[in-house]
């Protein structure tokens, strides 16, 4: 069943594209005329090696854009898993880039999907798109929007001057959906 109310924390190293992935998800919500918010961490934690952002998609106005008990965690490195796994709400979803995370802590009551996203990205010739592979996996697990909406959202988020990146992004998204 489609899950439409999402409170997501995306976290990883700076440069892994978590903020961009968050923007794609928020853009999909915007295209479906829902309430959305996107909030990056810009504080000291960002200077300590992890970058994270909060994304909310809802049918109601968004209260706090800062997500403290996510129902989805997308974690792309070990510190992010360690920091956020216990904050995920009961019944929530945890998407982990298993090529970057060696020690998966135990956590009951949530669905954990381990996807070797960075490895898959390297093998398929689109380095740096592990973020989009995980976004595809998020769609496969939750169907938080129409599939076409998500494709359109990626197209909106790829800057006009970097259109050559659109095709690899769409391929990475499809690959993630098949995981």
């Amino acid at each position, binding site marked *: 069943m489609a899950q439409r109310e999402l409170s997501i924390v995306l976290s990883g190293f700076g440069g892994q594209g978590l903020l961009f992935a968050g923007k794609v998800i*928020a853009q999909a919500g915007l295209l479906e005329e829902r309430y*959305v918010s996107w909030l990056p961490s*810009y504080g000291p934690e960002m200077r300590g090696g992890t970058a994270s952002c909060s994304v909310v998609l809802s049918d109601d106005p968004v*209260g*706090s*854009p*800062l997500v403290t008990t996510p129902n989805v965690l997308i974690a792309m490195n070990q510190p992010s898993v360690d920091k956020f796994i216990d904050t995920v709400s009961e019944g929530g979803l945890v998407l982990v880039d298993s090529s970057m995370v060696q020690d998966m802590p135990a956590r009951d009551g949530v669905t954990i999907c381990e996807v070797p996203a960075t490895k898959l990205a390297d093998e398929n010739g689109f380095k740096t798109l592990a973020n989009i592979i995980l976004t595809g996996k998020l769609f496969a697990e939750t169907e938080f929007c129409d599939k076409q909406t998500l494709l359109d959202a990626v197209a909106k988020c790829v800057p006009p001057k970097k259109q050559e990146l659109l095709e690899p992004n769409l391929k990475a998204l499809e690959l993630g959906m098949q995981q």
Partner: protein
Amino acid sequence: MAEKVLMKGNEALAAAAVRAGCRFYFGYPITPQTELAAYMSKVMPKVGGTFLQAESEISAINMLYGAAAAGARAMTSSSSPGISLKGEGISYMAGADLPGVIVNVERGGPGLGSIQPSQQDYWQATRAMGHGDFFMIVYAPNTVQEMADMVFTAFEKADEYLTPVMILADGLLGQMMEPVELPDEIGELPEKPWATNGHKNQREHNIANSLYLQSDELEAKLLERAKRYEAIVEKEQLSEGFMLEDAEIVLVAFGASSRIARSAVVKAREEGIKAGLLRPITLWPFPEKALAETLSTAKAYLSVEMNMGQMVDDVRLVVEGRAPVEHFGRTGGIIPTPDEVLCAIRSLNEKVGE
């Protein structure tokens, strides 16, 4: 209708300012408002405007004074420590009756404080921005859409009342992205016959000055300005009510904390507590009339702020002891959670319940 786009609050505010006819921006970088200045640096040259990164905040505010005196729509922005530096210049602008827009994307204080969102500058904005008897209109947006809309209103009101106007936002509103529909480009700007611009000796010289060596002249000027303040207090109070019709526990919150307070009110209602929210949109003038109307049902008030308790003073001034008024806050850059606010609502409800 314009397309809705995802934008950061800082950028939406800057984009709307340009559409409101702002052609001069003076600033100095500081987290968490830097995207505002960055946007201006890209866009101003394209619209024939001026972006100037000043050597300091004090320079920037005095450039604002100059541009405003010359009749331009002009803006400066900073975050808390930088706003303190602008205080002197804002007082001079108020003393010379100059319109201009000042944006404060607040962070934790005092001193250099933290770079995280706070609402610790409420007293400064509404009471003590600088020396002398003066006020400025203060708008407190709580969405990215309002960041865009209110800067438009700020320019209009600054010109109408000849006063500096402040947008009091915070790091949360500045950094977050939400869908926003930018306002249309403004058409004609108001005439400014008082401006100190070139006129080829066609009229008397205009002077923009805040110095009055004769005390009686200064007093007369202050009394004239006070009439304008009275008009502002009468006509410009803005607020938004949420579930207030039968509210017994009335929350009062502005800006970012009002979003969290709203979530807490929804949760309290689910528990059967008759909570409601009054959100001041103008902080000065404080929405006294709307708050006074809640007295008919209110048993207690809870001022929810990201500080140690500042706006709670204004709530008490309106309530005048007719109901208990409490404060709940997190400070120093901590954003309260709806559950924390809910706990404060519950305990207040128990205290005043039959």
